[in-house]
């Protein structure tokens, strides 16, 4: 025969188990809802101008491909600003949780300068390079993706150079050489080989 005292204890424990179960379910839902929150996006100035179709060359780590994707975006008239907007749009895509080619949080582009119709300089922020994954293929995909996206926007472009916080850097993250001008035609040929 179970004593009355023991019955109280068992009842209290049963209630406690139920309460803890409900609390666990609550915590799980809360954690899941936190995962859905968007990652911090780079801040950008509002853009004035009509919406246009722009082509982004989006890298995919799974098959090392660069696929053209059309998106609509409000585009300014200034060529340098247009370059910045397309690269910013590309980077924003890479910062999504479901990105096929993830970049580190905080990555963004400061400026794109068109020195002449054939030469562009892309000035990226420090977070872009510092948080980039290290490896020949992953760095190559990032660089090629930016170069080909710019080429799609500026068909006369023949060479592109990268700066990090306004300064020349030897490699993006230890492998791909970004210290000099990159030949756009050769990048297109090489990325064709990748596919």
């Amino acid at each position, binding site marked *: 025969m179970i004593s009355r005292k023991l019955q109280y204890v068992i009842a209290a424990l049963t209630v406690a188990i139920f309460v803890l179960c409900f609390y666990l379910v609550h915590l799980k839902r809360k954690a899941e809802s936190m995962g859905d929150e968007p990652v911090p996006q780079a801040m950008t100035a509002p853009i004035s101008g009509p919406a246009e179709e722009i082509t982004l060359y989006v890298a995919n780590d799974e098959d*090392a491909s660069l696929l053209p994707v059309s998106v609509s975006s409000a585009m300014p008239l200034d060529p340098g600003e247009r370059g910045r907007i397309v690269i910013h749009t590309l980077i924003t895509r890479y910062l999504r949780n479901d990105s096929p080619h993830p970049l580190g949080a905080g990555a963004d582009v400061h400026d794109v300068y068109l020195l002449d119709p054939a030469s562009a300089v892309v000035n990226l922020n420090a977070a872009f390079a510092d948080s980039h994954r*290290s*490896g020949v*293929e992953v760095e190559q995909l990032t*660089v090629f993706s930016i170069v080909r996206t710019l080429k799609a926007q500026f068909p006369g472009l023949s060479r592109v150079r990268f700066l990090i916080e306004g300064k020349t850097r*030897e490699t993006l993250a230890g492998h791909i050489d970004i210290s000099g001008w990159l030949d756009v035609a050769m990048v297109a040929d*090489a990325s064709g*080989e990748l596919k």
Partner: protein
Amino acid sequence: MLRAESIFVRVATLLLFLLAVGLAAETRRVVVYAPKTNYQLDILVRDGVDYLGLTDLLEPLGHVESRLEDNKLKLSFNGGEAEFQDGKRQYRVRANARLDLAANFLLVNGRGYVPVVSVTQLLSRIAVQPAEFHDGSCRLFIGSTKISYSAELRHDPSRLVLSFPAPVKPSTLVEKGRVHLLFHREPVVSSGADKVSYGDSFLLSTSFAEIPGGAEFIATVQQPATVSIGDGGRTVIISPATQPPSAPGTVPAPTASPAAQPHSPVPRPRPFVILDAAHGGSETGSVFSPTLIEKEINLMLARQLQKELESRGISVVLTRVADNPLTGDQRAIAANTSHSSLYIAIHSSASGHGVRVYTSMVPALQPRQTRRSFLPWELAQSPHLDQSRIAASAIAAECAYRGLPVRSSAAPLRPLNNVTIAAVAVEVAPLGASADELAAPEFQQRIAATLATSIASLRGKLGAAQ
């Protein structure tokens, strides 16, 4: 309880045995000693018969061309021709002479395979070179490559002098009462008497035996002994440790485990390949985990590849053998002054799967430029781009043939632009989901064997180094 333990022990023993048999079957190779080169070939076992790849066998010996017509393989070797048919024993050589193989000829993925036991007959017919196969050691001697030795016991002090007609570099192992000389590189064969008794106060007896992939000479001694090599590698002296030999021009041979690299005063031949384990020192490359760092994986892979290449008779140098930093320019200068024919940079990555092969992203030579034109440092690779692409294609083809995922492309990757020989970079990624696989010996061995086979196929195709 005891019965359960007994069953467990038996099952475990059986599994270990099967594992050992499986591993042994996987690693069986034939060592080929040819007049100009030594190399190893993997054995393919089909229906209990050992086979060797016909093209792999002949390529290091001369110019081979083969073409497939339906289920027939037509082969041209140094001007002579032969024709084989899949699933048939009979084959045709030169003036329509018909001969039989010991078992059916095999075509596997477009490659021809012949029974190992028929190789000597085949070589004498196709290559017109006498050949001898030693079944016990799986060694194939082509032409007059065998090295016999003579052994002489000399006195005052007592010492055994082994004389060889060509330089040798045995691995030596000195243990209590025994001195082992292991010949894994040289085609050393018995001199007639495999076991000799001396009954000397220092030397009791000697024995010689062929072991898988080589030969072993054992001297049974009664005192601590030392081994020294002299006369440019042609003389090996086993003497008491307290009485070093006084023969001029000898240096003590380092004692090592059988697996260790032997050292000797024999000069190294000109290397065919320079291997560059990327990163080093504070420049770590990718950090896969606190204990798994790219610079270390690269060095491990480079060493494994060096071992595989040397086992195929290919001479190799490494840009670094320890954790020391090198700039891109230093690596390029090391490659350009090595007199090698091929530069291979080795990288590893946790992203993606398989092998990526890269060539330099420099423009090819302009019409007015020649290989002798003065070029800027940044374009130094331009005249050699075609050869680099040949090397990249060979590596990619071998990876694909062995079922490894592979991609190849051009990339702006230092120091490829500055290298003045055929130059490629290889980035290796795990086949599964975990980066830990990069450090696994089986994975590294598989990658190294694949790369070594493809590099071996490039001999004679890349031209002389500048």
